[in-house]
């Protein structure tokens, strides 16, 4: 039997209130979102809390979902907004703190990440917040630029400029030369 699409599950969840469909969507995306939040924030507990917040808003906003539209960008938009509001809150809480978790700088768990992953994470810390967000979504989540533009609320060209500058900076920091150079 073929696997149900996200959109089928969303239709069952929104129209019929199917708990099973909600749970299936949760199981498809919770781990990915947790990984995304971990890369941004670096705390397992905070990442879990943000996943919980994301699905809470996903549930409360389900009446606004237009059936037939793709689920993934919709869910990621909620997740990124939850993260933004969390970071604003944290930075307000301890504006003088140097804790990277508080400031939303990317961190990698030394016990679970590879050396190159840690290197990339450190290099990402050199980027601006806007560049970092775009690189995270493109490099790790492999979203397309139109999808990213939709998620971050910027034009396609602005997103591509951010990505271009971000990758240039990454290559510079990591000492990786462009192909053919």
């Amino acid at each position, binding site marked *: 039997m073929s696997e149900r699409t996200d959109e089928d599950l969303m239709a069952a969840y929104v129209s019929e209130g199917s*708990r099973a469909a909600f*749970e299936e969507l949760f199981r498809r995306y919770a*781990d990915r979102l947790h990984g995304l939040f971990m890369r941004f924030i670096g705390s397992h507990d905070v990442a879990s809390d943000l996943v919980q917040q994301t699905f809470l*808003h996903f549930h409360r906003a389900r009446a606004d979902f237009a059936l037939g539209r793709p689920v993934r960008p919709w869910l990621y938009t909620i997740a*990124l907004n939850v993260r933004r509001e969390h970071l*604003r809150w944290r930075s307000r*809480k301890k504006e003088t703190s140097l804790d990277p978790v508080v400031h939303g700088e990317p961190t990698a768990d030394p016990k679970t990440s590879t050396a190159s*992953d840690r290197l990339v994470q450190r290099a990402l810390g050199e980027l601006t917040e806007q560049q970092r967000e775009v690189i995270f979504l493109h490099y790790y989540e492999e979203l397309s630029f139109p999808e990213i533009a939709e998620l971050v609320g910027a034009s396609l060209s602005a997103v591509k400029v951010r990505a271009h500058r971000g990758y240039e900076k990454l290559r510079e920091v990591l000492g990786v030369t462009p192909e053919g150079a």
Partner: protein
Amino acid sequence: MDDLTTTRDALKSELGAPEAGAGLGSRDLDALFARVAADTVDRAPNVRDKVRELRSRSRVALAATGALVVGVVMLLLTGLHAELGGSQVVVRYAVAMTGIAAVVALMVALSLRGLHRRPLGPWVWVVVGAALLLPVVLAVTPWVWDTGHPAPYVGVGVPCLALGLVTGGLTGAVVWLFQRGAPRAPWRLLTAAAAGGLTAFAMLQLHCPARDATHLLVGHASVGLLLAAVVGLVVWLRARRG
């Protein structure tokens, strides 16, 4: 494939595929789903759950109507002032009230904006600031409220301020009731405060015949700013407590 995707793939092959991260084990995932389900699909919705799970358009319409109802009820309880006569005065008041109502509706829409929508840029702070200051600007443009009758002396305006704080507070509470629970964004609360301040100002202008600048600034126009100060204090205290 575009150049940037080629760059990404080149970086990945140079550095090795990115680590998937520790991830959530199946027990963590089960525990997290249990927590999420307890707040969502396994919970019998109460009245607040029901109103904040409505479509955003409905929430905005209901909350804006709620703000109108608060203003009208307060006006019915306190009464219109007697100098509202003459077609020119009525037209001027109607235009001013329509403009204020439009800004209240905008504030409600911003306050209730869903997290599934694109993020707003920094301009939202300019809009919220302008809405909070609008009653002050209107208070120092007395020709808008000129009724052609001599204005009575009504003091500095402390009773009006108290009445305005009740009206504004109730309006802010109505807007908050329809929020989906994102208290970590202060601009959502500040927009609710601005809606409260504007509703209170409109109600007081219809109730009180004063045209003295001090009275208007203290008694009628400061409600939104005071509510915003309360929001700022609450946000600061919550941030300190964590």
